[in-house]
């Protein structure tokens, strides 16, 4: 049974085409929840071990578990597509970094930190990528929107939580 269960979890992770959380996986076995509850994590661990020697890995990100091609094979994978991987501009990355580390943050606060106006295009691009969203409004005159990063952002960058972001250098940085 355990072996079959492992195959089902493996299959679901491949077929879902998006990360599956433990809850999502549990739902596959709606019949006997109790038996599954204990086993799922170990099933995932077992799968992770099985794939350790393969080109594919089973990783956990903010939204759940997914199979992905290991990064070391990316130079070859990139040739499968005509377009080169998107390179993001410094302006976009800086804006994203400020939102990621300072969230929730307003546009004005981003502008203050960067010393330049934030282009609407960048905010729109980040929203279209589903990396940031408006989480509310700051209770100051004008009630500006507050931006936060999303789980999709963490998923995209192979992260489970914001704490896993590279630590922000201390304030007394040597220029």
């Amino acid at each position, binding site marked *: 049974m355990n072996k079959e269960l492992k195959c089902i979890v493996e*299959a679901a992770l*491949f*077929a*879902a*085409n998006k990360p599956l959380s433990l809850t999502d996986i549990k739902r596959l076995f709606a019949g006997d929840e109790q038996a599954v509850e204990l086993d799922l994590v170990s099933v995932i661990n077992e799968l992770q071990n099985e794939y350790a020697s393969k080109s*594919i890995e089973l990783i956990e990100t903010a939204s759940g578990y*997914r*199979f*992905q*091609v*290991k*990064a070391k094979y*990316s130079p070859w*994978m*990139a040739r499968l597509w005509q377009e080169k*991987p*998107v390179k*993001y501009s*410094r*302006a976009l*990355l*800086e804006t*994203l*970094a*400020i939102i*990621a*580390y300072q969230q929730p943050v307003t546009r004005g606060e981003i502008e203050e*930190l*960067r*010393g*330049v*106006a934030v282009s609407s295009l960048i905010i729109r691009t980040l929203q279209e990528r589903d990396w940031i969203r408006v989480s509310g409004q700051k209770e100051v005159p004008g009630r500006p929107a507050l931006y936060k990063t999303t789980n999709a952002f963490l*998923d*995209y*960058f*192979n*992260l489970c939580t914001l704490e896993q*972001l*590279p630590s*922000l*250098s201390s*304030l*007394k*940085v*040597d*220029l």
Partner: protein
Amino acid sequence: MSEAGTNQTINAIVAGEPYLELPDNLYIPPDALEVCLEEFEGPLDLLTYLIKQQNLNILDIPIRMITEQYVEYIEKMDQLRMELAAEYLVMAAMLAEIKSSMLLPKQASILDAEDDPRAELVRRLQEYERFKLAAEDIDELPRLQRDNYVASADLISDVSDKPLATVDLELLVGAFKGVLQRLDMNSHHKIQRDELSIRDRMAAIMQTLTSSSDLLFSFDTFFVLSEGRQGVVVSFMAILELAKEELIIIMQSSPLGGIWVKAVVDE
């Protein structure tokens, strides 16, 4: 304003020592200036660049020298008719303000960091630098579609085994009309042709259908617009003839969807 690298007078006083010659790495060829101006992400970025370029101590910025260089850059931007964002001018004003308050006489005893007019600028530069580095860190994180690719597998279901619906004649004629309409758009191609034989065309179509590994062919495949009206009519007649003789099947995956042609394979 002095041209960098050419002036032998005292260019600046750094940490109490006069600089007669500018450091070698300071001189930036005018061409390089053009290239890198667009690279800057605003006044803080430009200032950081100038400070780093000369290995200056951020806590003790020679404001006059930096201001001169800064203004030189933004003048260059102006000359190149680049859109000079207001932020750059605000920063120039801020630098001038800092310089002027530094020139004001002070009681020597209270010249600590708190009162240094440069303090706010330094704080902003340091703060900006942190996020600039953070942005680089984020860019280096392994990410999808560059370093990792989602691995997925198709779920093979029975759906694909379902027979496709047959097409009724009206739709077939409609599709053919589409071909004719496109043909009209190409009508300036006047091509003299020998009379085409429907038999020959039927054989050609069967050849196409059976010699390829593809099982399904789009209805449109069999019409060569350059053959003119006569050519496509022959193709259409040949397809109808083949269908009548049950050598081919014509089908459609969904209403208004594409029409497909497939050879009948003897089991």
